[in-house]
Structure formats: C-alpha cells, structure tokens
C-alpha cells in the first residue's frame, strides 16, 4: 500500500499506521531507523557542511562519510546491512561530488570518489564498490610504462532503477543506463551500458538485452 504524497509526514504516518496493525516489531525497527537517520542528518548538517542528506533517511547500518568533497543524498534512502557493511562514501578531493537520488536502497555500498559519482533514483545496491579511478592514491603510482592519463579519474553515472549485484566493482568512467542489472561479481571498467541490459563478467563485455532473456523464458 503506497501513498504518494507531497508531504513526507503523511507518508511516514501511513507507514507507521500500517506497520502497527500488521507487524508491530517491524514498525519499531523502522521507527528506530528513522530516528537514527535523523541523528545522522543533524550530525552532518552541523559538523560537515559539505554533506547534505534530505529527510527522511532510514539507517539500519552504520553510515560513514569522509572527505571534503560534496555529498548529497536525496529523500527516502535506506541503508540496510549487507555483508555487515553499511554505506561508506569517501571523497578524495575537495572538488569531488557524490549525488545519490531518491528511494535508493543502499546496502553495503562503498563509494570512492575523486571526480564525480552520480547515482539516480530507485537504485538497489549490494556489497559493491563504486570507484572513480583505478587507484585511490594515484600520486603514489610509480609504474613507468603506462600513460598516466589513461588512469585519470573519470565520472560515473548510474541511471534510474538500476540493480547493482553483490561483489561487483564499477570503475572509472562508466555509464549505466536505466533499468539495467549488474550481475554478481561483475567488473564494469569504463563500459557504457544501454538501458535495460544485463551486465556480467569480469571484465564485462557484451551486455545482454534483458528482453531477450525474458523472451527465452517463454
């Protein structure tokens, strides 16, 4: 039973009321998560001016946000535990920018941003790594053969309704289209994925159209 309302208070009230009738214990955990989320919002508002999280924010597992870059998390995001990890966002430079959209379910996601990471609405994540560059400490790279411009941090854009599987790594300059699915253990290395495709493999090549997979079932 979903109530789409402009006022967050009405939505939360409806959730609480339905939970009270169906499962009182779950309602308690939801309320506790909301309170914990509110504490997080207030802490980041006061202590770190570069982090902005919008109410309501449901936190079931620890949230760690480090670094001087800008972080913005939109409404109704929830952090469930996944492989015992909560959300971890680390920005490595002051011009780094991380934007997360509405209604995201962020499990054990680790975001390491040097340049720009944008995650749009309704994205589901698991224990995975979204990293803007190959190496977090590029200045310590001493290998002489490779052209360092190839290893420069890119920007990652993950569109609406993407499902990021477990134990996968999304590295450097990826663009993942709407409704796509990233399989477990995949490695997206500078790939651009078209909308509604399935990405698998390490490194991932040849994303498969999901329509075809659904067609095979019938």
């Amino acid at each position, binding site marked *: 039973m979903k109530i789409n309302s402009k006022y967050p208070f009405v939505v939360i009230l409806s959730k609480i009321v339905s939970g009270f009738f169906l499962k009182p214990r779950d309602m308690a955990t939801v309320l506790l998560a909301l309170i914990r989320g509110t504490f997080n919002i207030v802490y980041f508002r006061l202590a770190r001016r570069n982090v902005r999280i919008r109410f309501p924010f449901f936190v079931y597992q620890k949230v760690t946000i480090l*670094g001087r870059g800008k972080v913005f998390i939109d409404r109704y995001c929830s952090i469930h535990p996944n492989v015992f990890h909560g959300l*971890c966002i680390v920005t490595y430079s002051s011009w780094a920018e991380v934007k997360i959209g509405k209604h995201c379910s962020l499990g054990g996601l680790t975001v*390491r941003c040097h340049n720009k990471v944008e995650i749009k609405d309704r994205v589901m994540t698991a224990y995975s790594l979204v990293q803007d560059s190959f*190496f977090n400490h590029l200045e*310590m790279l*001493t290998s002489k*053969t490779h052209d360092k411009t*190839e290893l420069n941090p890119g920007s990652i854009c993950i569109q609406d309704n993407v499902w990021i599987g477990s134990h996968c790594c999304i590295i450097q300059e990826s663009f993942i289209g709407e409704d796509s699915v990233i399989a477990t253990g995949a490695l997206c*290395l500078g790939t651009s994925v078209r909308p509604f495709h399935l990405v698998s493999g390490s*490194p991932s090549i040849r994303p498969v159209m999901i329509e075809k997979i659904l067609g095979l079932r019938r």
Partner: protein
Amino acid sequence: MNTRDLFAKIRGRLFKARCRVFRKNIIVGHNLMIYRKLDVRGPGRIVIGDNCKVYGVRGDFHQYVTLYTHRPDAFIRIGDNVNLFGARISACFAITIGNAALIEESGIADSDFHSIDRGRESPENEVKEKCEVVLGNRVSIGSRSIIMKGVQIGDDTIVGPGSIVTRTLPARVFAIGNPARVLSRTESKGETIIEIR
C-alpha cells in the same frame, strides 16, 4: 611535518624496537611509517625495506595490514619505498615484493591452505618452487584483488581493481578481471572497446 606523519614515524620506530627485542625473526629497515595497525604473526622470517608506509583503508576502520607466516621457514620480503594500503599478506613459503610497489586493499596468499579432498587437510604437492609469489618492482595492485599462489608479476605491471590473479603476468602490462587477463585498450570516440589479448 604533519602531526599524522610524526605519529606514524614514532609508531614505526616503536615497532622496530619491539621487533628487535621480542621478535628477532622480523627485520625492519629505516624510516618505517605506520599510519594504521600493522599486524605481524607467525614463526617465519620477515624483512621490511626502507621508507615503507603502512596505511589502512580510508573509510573502513576494520581493515589493516597483516603479514602472517604459517611455517618457520616461511619468508616475506618487502622492498624499499613500498606503500601498503590495507594489504593482507599470508605466507607458507615465500612472498617477495619488489621496490616502490603500491598495494591497495588486496590479499596475497601463498598457498591454498586446504585440499579439495573431503578431509580438507593441508594440500599435497605444494612446494616452494611452485607456490612462491614474486611481485616485481613498481607493481601496482588495485582494490579488492586477490593474488593466488605461484604467481610472478613482472616489473611495472598494473593489476586493476577487483581482479583475481591466478597466473604469472609479464612485465609492463595492464591486467584485470577474474581470472586476470592482460588487456589492451583502444578508445574510439567515447565508446571504449576493450580487447582481451
């Protein structure tokens, strides 16, 4: 100098003094800087070179550098100017890391530790010549990668994040994937095409 660097230097000096008194099997070079916990266990020999830096993983407070040896004749040799960011190194035979390497949040293991038999005992047929791990000079290993037994990585090689290295890699290549394959990239007008050699 930063206070952080100062504390790291002090921690390094304390670690070196502790090793000299209590653990004579660990030899530490000059100017070791420890920013997050360095955990060393086991009866084997460990030699750490000069100017090494030991960091943790930024954002995850539970990860630190571990250098474990499982046998008295095991040997870990870390070269000069090596940066370890939460590397987990576990040796049964010998692991050698060259100079100026950069190792991020990955695991290096010298052995399978268990056999595929039902009893899961120590694996047979594991000999030092087959299982030792050698990383060359100026090697860079990305996050969340695993380097398995018997792997020799040449100088100046870059191993990308999330890769699992099962075979020897030559020098001056870029390898990524599970299993790690050498990659040659050609970019054309915004869409990256990756060929696998």
